[in-house]
């Protein structure tokens, strides 16, 4: 290449003053000095320490629990079990759909039956963690061990052991009479699948299996709860959604939300896994039983692996047909995903995403939500979509290979656009699928020859593209004006990766003031309006929008106030770039700073509010180009070069957008190559440590080059599309395609670890 190559491009087509810049985050100083308060850092007077007793069996009936010896241990203050839950209604809803109460509570403290190893059964509060741990070993639980079901196909088998005798397969909310491990069957149909395949010149069909993987956040779950003497409950926790915790504690304990305050502590990663609530209700119950003392519970790493997360293993068949010219004419998918112990795998989302990148006339997609004896799955970045893309993006690659068409060209030829009807029915609004594919095709990486091998292995290149819908949901924000010309911004979204900055930037842009003059803070549930989870790629989109609304509210009030001071009609006043001026009289102008100093003498404080539940959610496409080196003698894969291209709509803070793209892609690489729950036959996870659950280290990766594509989302004031998730959808498939190109092995199993690659090469 003769031209100098510059990584990390932003393909912007609209510029703003603050939006699109890269300021330092407001919580930065605290986070580089160790001062930031994460949940486990909290110290309170009279603090007790809680620990959870967990099932050693994957599937068993609980015959009895005896706490006598544990309670006799010096320092033990209280024990709780499912028996401590009060009577309540049958269905729980804490903001994320309905779930039967017995399932919801069962995953907090199991009653009568345990459905996975690591499931919580009881909890102890004691004067120290060591005493609490010792007490756990003194709790005597008698089990009747049952056969375990560990994969979706096992769970769907005719003679499979049944996990729930009250679970009957649902089909689009139709309750069937079949008592089964299949909790739900989804289906999407468009066109005529048989006719479609009849018109195909080339058909590829493959079956894929993927292992259970964990979100892998570095900070274990934690909670401190105080059930106060006045029966108010205060919960401090590292969570993706303080209001979700409030609702979940309310539902579990049958306490009204007004009696519960949740203070969101700083959070050490979540990726979807810190939406669900685990020990919080038990901590509150322990606090009450221990005499209204605060109780802190922090999970160990093994508890995190065995008791929280993960995202499902899956069993999927994908079949696609195309004409010799490269037109994909039919696509069929059969996706079965493991829900874990209770219904609710992300197969519905997987089914909606599997072919979303393409314009295909004839599609049938079936999805099965299957309960198995593993931890109940939780959201993990674009839940369900990576599994589906691992299958579909390999099949399409094989079609390109058979037709001898460049794999990006084939994707471009069939790419979904505005107006393309999706298999689940709706038509795509303005989307950036084509723009992402084009940016990939034109990228220096794709235009360059294969990266040379580092260790004498074989090299190959692969691509993939993925889609995620993103979600909207509720957000609230208040902005108050300080008399020195700055504003305080209060919002309710846990800041998991710099969102304080991106939200503050929305307000600064509206008010025409500098980013540094907006001081954002994340408030507790008593201090800000209802705000849904930091998840679903919604935070910058929706809470940013709430900040935009609140700032516009402030702006309107500032205009009113200036008009009052000047004695003119408010309609004749405007505010631009932080200056208020009369549209007609050039003499009348005043900076925001000057006006703010006069507020107390001219009518009192100005407080703006924003509350949104937006539609206009912009889905995001993201693609990857990867060069790998595979050692054909050992099957070891190294990532030599990696480029990720994503449509951000508008990157509010490009560095944090790049961070999402890089982070999501690297989680995808880990998922692709090594991460998995390695189970024994009786359902124990053999590798619940960071030693053997092998997440990528810095030495396993090259720089992750990024291209931010900006196809403005017409639904958002600045064109934002959420960027937190789409980036994890297709790295796995891109790596698989690269391995295929390097050593000829088409990988139908994930992880594609060295042993799996060798097995494929030997077969």
């Amino acid at each position, binding site marked *: 290449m003769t031209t100098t190559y510059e990584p990390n491009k932003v393909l912007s087509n609209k510029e703003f003053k603050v939006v699109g810049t890269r300021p330092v985050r407001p919580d930065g100083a605290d986070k580089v000095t160790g001062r930031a308060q994460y949940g486990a850092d909290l110290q309170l007077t009279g603090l007790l320490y809680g620990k959870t007793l967990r099932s050693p069996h994957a599937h068993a009936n609980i015959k009895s629990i005896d706490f006598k010896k544990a309670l006799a241990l010096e320092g033990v203050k209280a024990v709780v079990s499912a028996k401590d839950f009060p009577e309540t209604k049958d269905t729980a*809803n804490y903001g*994320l*759909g*309905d779930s039967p109460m017995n399932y919801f509570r069962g995953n907090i403290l199991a009653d009568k039956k345990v459905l996975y190893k690591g499931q919580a059964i009881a909890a102890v509060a004691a004067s120290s963690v060591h005493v609490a741990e010792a007490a756990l070993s003194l709790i005597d639980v008698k089990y009747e061990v049952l056969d375990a079901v560990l994969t979706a196909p096992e769970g769907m088998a005719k003679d499979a052991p049944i996990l729930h005798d009250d679970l009957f397969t649902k*089909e*689009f*909310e*139709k309750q069937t009479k079949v008592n089964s491990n299949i909790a739900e*069957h*989804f*289906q*999407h*149909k468009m066109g005529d699948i048989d006719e479609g395949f009849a018109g195909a010149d080339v058909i590829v069909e493959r079956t894929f299996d993927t292992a259970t993987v964990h*979100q892998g956040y570095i900070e274990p779950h934690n909670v401190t709860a105080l059930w106060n003497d006045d029966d108010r409950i205060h919960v401090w926790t590292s969570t993706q959604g303080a209001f979700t915790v409030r609702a979940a504690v309310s539902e579990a304990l049958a306490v009204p939300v007004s009696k519960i305050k949740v203070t969101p502590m700083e959070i050490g990663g*979540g*990726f*979807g*896994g810190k*939406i669900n609530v685990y020990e919080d209700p038990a901590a509150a119950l322990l606090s009450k039983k221990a005499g209204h003392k605060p109780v802190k519970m922090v999970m160990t790493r093994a508890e995190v692996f065995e008791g929280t997360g993960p995202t499902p293993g899956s069993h999927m068949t994908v079949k696609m047909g195309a004409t010799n010219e490269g037109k994909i004419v039919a696509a069929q998918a059969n996706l079965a995903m493991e829900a874990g112990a209770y219904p609710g795998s*992300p197969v*519905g*989302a997987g*089914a*909606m995403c599997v072919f979303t990148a393409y314009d295909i006339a004839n599609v049938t997609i079936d999805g099965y939500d299957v309960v198995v004896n593993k931890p109940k799955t939780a*959201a*993990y*970045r*674009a*839940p369900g979509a990576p599994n589906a893309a691992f299958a579909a993006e390999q099949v399409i690659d094989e079609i390109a290979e058979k037709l001898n068409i460049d794999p990006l060209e084939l994707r471009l030829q069939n790419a979904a656009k505005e107006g393309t009807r999706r298999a*689940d*029915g*709706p*038509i*795509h*609004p303005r989307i950036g699928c084509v723009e992402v594919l084009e940016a990939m095709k034109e990228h220096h990486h794709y235009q360059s020859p294969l990266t040379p091998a580092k260790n004498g292995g074989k090299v190959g290149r692969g691509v993939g593209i993925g889609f*995620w*819908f*993103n*979600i*909207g*949901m*509720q957000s609230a924000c208040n902005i108050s004006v300080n008399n020195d010309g700055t504003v305080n911004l209060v919002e309710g979204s846990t800041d998991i990766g710099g969102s304080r900055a991106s939200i503050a930037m929305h307000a600064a842009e509206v008010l025409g003031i500098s980013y540094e003059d907006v001081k954002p803070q994340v408030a507790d549930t008593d201090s800000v309006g209802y705000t849904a989870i930091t*998840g*679903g*790629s*919604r935070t910058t989109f929706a809470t940013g929008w709430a900040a935009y609304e609140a700032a516009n509210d402030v702006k309107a009030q500032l205009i009113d106030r200036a008009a009052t001071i000047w004695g003119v009609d408010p309609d004749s006043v405007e505010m631009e770039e932080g200056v208020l001026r009369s549209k007609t009289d050039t003499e009348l102008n005043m900076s925001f700073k000057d006006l703010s100093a006069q507020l107390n003498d001219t009518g009192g404080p100005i407080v703006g509010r924003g509350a949104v*539940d*937006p*539609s*206009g*959610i912009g889905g995001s496409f993201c693609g990857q180009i990867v060069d790998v080196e595979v050692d054909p003698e050992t099957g070891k894969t190294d990532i030599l070069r990696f480029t990720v291209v994503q449509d951000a709509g508008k990157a509010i803070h490009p560095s944090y957008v790049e961070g999402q793209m890089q982070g999501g892609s690297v989680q995808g690489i880990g998922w692709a190559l090594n991460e998995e729950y390695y189970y024994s036959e009786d359902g124990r996870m053999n590798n619940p440590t960071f030693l053997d659950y092998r997440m990528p280290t810095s030495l396993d990766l090259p720089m992750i080059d990024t291209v931010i594509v900006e196809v403005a989302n017409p*639904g958002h004031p600045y064109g934002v599309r959420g960027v*937190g*998730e789409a980036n994890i959808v297709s790295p796995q498939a891109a790596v698989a395609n690269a391995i295929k190109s390097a050593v000829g092995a088409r990988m139908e199993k994930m992880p594609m670890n060295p042993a799996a690659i060798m097995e494929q090469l030997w077969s």
Partner: protein
Amino acid sequence: MAKVFIPSLMQELTDGQTQLDIQGSTVREIIKELEQSYPGVKDRLMDGFKLKGNINVAVDGEVSPIGVLAKVQENSEVHFLPALGGG
């Protein structure tokens, strides 16, 4: 009239029809109208006055944050979808 797309697993209630033209200015009215001709639809979709927790409705491709209260225009497309979460 709005174009209402019937999820494939609910088509048993609509005599196999995949798409119906239904009169109504909100999703609530649409469902009421559907229920008239195809009894059982309401029970599948609604829980009391609102959509079931695990169902979304999209009008012209936009998932409605207000469920059955969403306005429906003449020629709108209405889709019932499984609700999605996210990480």
